[in-house]
């Protein structure tokens, strides 16, 4: 345990520790899938043994990005689409932090899509939860990057002419080393997947299907769903990139045909994270960069270093 972080605290953690005193009740609409993400996240944290003081939650802009107001941890509400660069930099400065980035499908697959691609490519050791409700919710129901082709909204009254983003395939191609999809309607699986994603050493991408009962009434409420790991119908190796790619393509296509398939689709435990790569080339110290600001000895060390350089 380093001087300034409380990592590795050895005690039981109660999910309720993650309920903030200031805003204990989220102001999402009744029936919103976002509640399930919050609940699953609260359940996952004791599983991974992290206290609120060890966690940083970085969000973008949108209904879902209000997550860190309702989740007791260090919170950073960034601007639209920019959660990942901020999360990435915080992780590099203090790798002991458990970093979770979150936002909606418009935030992560649209306006912030380039950051998604490059953060996955670099395989930073963090978790990215995308609340995928196939709509822009906060601005009241416009077509989003995951809205199905033909989806009608106030900005596309004759239906969207665009094929939706394939988020799982995109995450895999970009370089995410853990890719999963879960649904708000499947809270137990969601908590398990989030715990796995957080524990995964590398960039973990969770596409979280969250129904929007207010602005996307036509959309599926993601029931019934099938867990591909539980079903006999599906047999593929999550560690095999090619099989994962084929499975993801099928899963993404099936969603728009009305069949909800969830589960883990790609897991690569061997790929080194960005921090590990940098440490291997000697470009990043073993100790957190940020630690020096909290370590009394570091001032002395800095003075000695200065003396050494100038004598």
């Amino acid at each position, binding site marked *: 345990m380093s001087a300034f972080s409380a990592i590795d605290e050895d005690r039981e953690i109660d999910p309720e520790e993650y309920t903030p005193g200031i805003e204990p009740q989220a102001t999402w609409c009744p029936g919103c899938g976002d509640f399930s993400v919050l609940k699953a996240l609260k359940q996952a944290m004791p599983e991974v043994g992290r206290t609120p003081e060890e966690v940083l939650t970085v969000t973008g*802009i949108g209904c879902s990005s209000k997550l860190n107001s309702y989740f007791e941890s260090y919170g950073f509400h960034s601007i*639209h689409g920019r959660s990942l660069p901020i999360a990435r930099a915080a992780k590099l400065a203090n790798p002991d932090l458990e970093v979770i980035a979150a936002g909606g499908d418009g935030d992560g697959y649209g*306006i912030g*899509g380039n950051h998604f691609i490059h953060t996955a490519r670099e395989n930073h050791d963090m978790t990215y939860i995308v609340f995928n409700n196939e709509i822009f919710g906060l601005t009241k129901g*416009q077509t989003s*990057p995951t809205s199905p082709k033909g989806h009608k909204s106030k*900005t596309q*009254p004759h239906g969207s002419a665009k094929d939706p983003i394939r988020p799982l395939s995109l995450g895999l191609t970009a370089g995410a080393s853990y890719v999963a999809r879960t649904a708000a309607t499947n809270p137990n699986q969601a908590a398990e997947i989030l715990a796995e994603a957080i524990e995964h050493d590398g960039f973990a991408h969770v596409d979280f299907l969250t129904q929007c009962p207010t602005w996307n009434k036509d959309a599926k409420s993601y029931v019934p769903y099938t867990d591909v790991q539980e079903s006999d119908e599906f047999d593929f190796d999550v560690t095999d990139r090619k099989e994962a790619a084929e499975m993801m393509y099928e899963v993404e296509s099936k969603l728009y045909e009305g069949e909800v398939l969830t589960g883990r689709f790609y897991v690569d435990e061997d790929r080194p994270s960005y921090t590990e790569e940098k440490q291997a080339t000697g470009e990043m110290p073993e100790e957190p960069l940020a630690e020096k600001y909290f370590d009394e000895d570091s001032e002395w060390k800095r003075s000695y270093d200065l003396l050494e350089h100038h004598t």
Partner: protein
Amino acid sequence: MAKAEQNPSDEQEVMKGTSAVAKGVMAADPDVVSAYPITPQTGVVEKLSELVADGQLDSEFIKVDSEFNAASTCIGASAAGARAFSATSSQGLKLMSEPLFTAAGMRLPIVMAVANRSLSAPLSIWADHTDAFAERDGGMLQFHAEDVQEAIDHVLMGFRVAEQVNLPVLSNFDGFILTHVQEPADIPTEEEVNEFLPPRDPEFTLDPSDPKTMGAFARPEHWTETRYAIQEAMMESKDVWAQTVQEFKEVFGRDYTEYNGMLDTYHGDADYRLVALGSICGTIRGVIDEYREQGVDVGLVRPRVHRPFPTEELREALGDAEAVGVLTKEMSPGYESALAGEIKGTLYHAENQPPIKSFVIGMAGRDVNAPEIGTMIEETMEASAPMTFEEQESWPQLREKLLNGGDQ
């Protein structure tokens, strides 16, 4: 001007500000509309998309992944010779900043309705002018509307001036206060607009029969002249604007011709003159009426146009005042508010320099009420030069308790 009629006339329609602006845009018949949703603008482009879908507007509505894309889409459309429109607010305008500066440099007209909203952080969706002022130096013309009618009319006049001087236009109207209000307004008909706004006759386009490159690398021996051309066009735009408001009056009957269309005044020859932009002027007029009844000679000078800056007009409108009070919804950290600084700069070599007090108010939608405006009138009346820098500007709505660690 800008005083709403008690009862709407038969020709007027009552609708939400964003819908009214969209209907005005429809009358201008843009070829391409591209935008990304952002509060409080979203209603403008939602309405436009509905009008396109209903076949009432023959326009290509291009929905995109970000404001950066929306502004770039308008640039591409404008470069191909199309009439292009977009709308945004706050962070969206910030994200458009990079492409908009290039639009000005490429001399491509684009008209945008900007539903003004404060900039993050902290996150806020409510109105002030920090977004508009952050784009001040990009080479975009900027207008500020006081009511919904002006928000409609400024966009229409914006197309005309933008397409004549080949620069983008930001037509500002206050978020929520004007976007979400329902006011009676005259919605221009297509016939009227046809008389006022000719089809675009593009000067710089991507024409296959006359190939050229836009935005190419300029070496030090060329860059200065290219950007200076924007300055020249801005200066020329004042004459074009004066002519535009004149012809607008002839076609539509609404008179924005005071001070060449640059300023709007209310008891503009009063001893004490307030200066403010946008919707707050409605409240200010009411307070002025109260003070005048009590014998205080106070008036209002409202810049309708912020870029090009109304230098000659403000020298004339403020030069002989006893004192001036600038009420502004923006700030320039490290100096004083940009509007106050600009007004002082513009008066520096004028014949007279009245003492000026400035007040930073109404930030991020904080209500500015009549007694507060009254206090600012009274403080303005006490203004006298010389002043220290600290005496020049104040933030009368600051909640000292919050600054001192209070949590209310």
